[in-house]
């Protein structure tokens, strides 16, 4: 599926994230200032020498749509679960980590704990009892955006992220 997967640990993933941002030459990174990843990111970024700019917005998308589309180079989000048999991520966007974070910026980093892995999609739906209450938007994501609409030739980065980078915490 052409997603990059990097194995790291619960204590070191944010450093790895910073390193990957640098390797990819990213100028900024969008994340949820009030989300689950913020403490680790802030701790690493505050001690780093000239890290990529941190972008935080606690407002609705309407307040900053042009900047989201034009100026945001990457975003990082947490992930609800992973599905092993088809290599997909399950996201249930939250007020803190809205759905456009995993869609609009050209690079999406996803932080997945190995303990959140399920065997199949059917197993997640069943074990987590999804039918008892669905979020406004639930997503499975298995790779970067792609299309085979021209001559059945795979082209990456059509509308969604051009790169999906998974940090797998074990």
């Amino acid at each position, binding site marked *: 599926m052409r997603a990059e997967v990097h194995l790291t640990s619960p204590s070191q993933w944010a450093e790895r994230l910073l390193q990957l941002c640098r390797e990819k030459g990213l100028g900024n990174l969008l994340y949820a200032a009030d989300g689950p990843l913020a403490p680790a990111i802030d701790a690493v970024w505050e001690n780093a020498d000239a890290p990529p700019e941190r972008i935080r*917005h606690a407002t609705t998308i309407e307040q900053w749509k042009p900047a989201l589309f034009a100026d945001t180079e990457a975003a990082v989000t947490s992930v609800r679960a992973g599905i092993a048999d088809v290599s997909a991520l399950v996201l249930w966007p939250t007020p803190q980590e809205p759905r456009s974070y995993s869609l609009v910026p050209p690079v999406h980093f996803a932080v997945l704990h190995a303990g959140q892995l399920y065997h199949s999609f*059917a197993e997640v739906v069943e074990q987590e009892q*999804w039918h008892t209450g669905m979020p406004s938007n639930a997503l499975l994501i298995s790779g970067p955006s792609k299309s085979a609409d021209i001559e059945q030739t795979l*082209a990456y980065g059509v*509308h*969604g992220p051009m790169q999906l980078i998974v940090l797998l915490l074990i």
Partner: protein
Amino acid sequence: MQVTSDFQGRCREALNDPQIRRNFRFAMDGLMSKRRASLGDEDEREGLRARCAAIRANALARLPDLLEQLERNCTENGIRVHWAETVQEANRIVLDIVRGHHARRLIKGKSMVSEEMGLNHFLEGQGIECLESDLGEYIVQLAGETPSHIIAPAIHKNRQEVAELFRRKFPDIPFQEDPEALARSARRILREKFEQAEIGLSGVNFAVAETGTLCLVENEGNGRMCTTVPPVHIAVTGIEKVVERLGDIPPLLDLLVRSATGQHISTYFNMISSPRREGERDGPREVHLLLLDNGRSRIHRDAQLIDTLRCIRCGACMNHCPVYGRIGGHAYGSTIPGPIGSVVEPQKEGLARFGELPTASTLCGACAEVCPVRIPR
């Protein structure tokens, strides 16, 4: 009945066009081998087919109940449900929503039902921009054509033809034939459109009655854009797309994707159950679900034809059809081409227009062999 020769004429034209034949042969061979590789294990494949056929047959057996339940649960979730008997009614409902928001720009994800409605043409006649955003649909719209395949709308064009089209439409963009470079050009052009669109419109692959959830399968992310970024989302679908339970979705998704493109799973599977909720920072503030009948109830009442409503629009019957592979999608002249189109379109649009389509068969049975929901058996 007087048999019209339009269809025969279009067939002859397609058969005499070596470019069309090459483009289709190449694409069909690729799609067939991808499906074969993905569904090679016969026991697993047949088990999945039996299960998916049963899920769809069950949904159709309980269609009126499930539609009521879907409406109830969607409404409870804050999705506004509309019913349309005819395509004229459906277009009118969309127009009323668009007008209600004083909107002028609508952006679309892939939707065969909107093709059935002739929605683009209708809205443009009302002065509303109606832009396709799926790469294949975008190409087809730029060329002033219609889709020639339900999964790969621009499959009749090769890269040189697409490159030529882009050169004509966008003289400022440097000429390029590489599919990825062409896709990136479309990305740049359409990003601004997503940002500015006032309404996003999409189709629906499955609608789950149990939870009031609309499911969309896609690889590009344009479907997510259309259902995430604009303040209003309109989902249009046929009444037959409903399934009973959320637990029905994993096997259907699995078999749909593998039958269609041979992928393990699509890049995105998007499940929408409500508009933006209190406290959420994005997502449409309004979600509308438009359920179109257009002859489906009549097909549903016909014991011989009801099974055709199981169709999950994977395209496999087209890919494997010796007739479709030679004449291509446009020759059919219908919204849905290929074997399933040949059966459904005369029912929906009448024998006068499409009575000849069922003759586009060699009786080889390839379509029945590959259909994930076992139509016609």
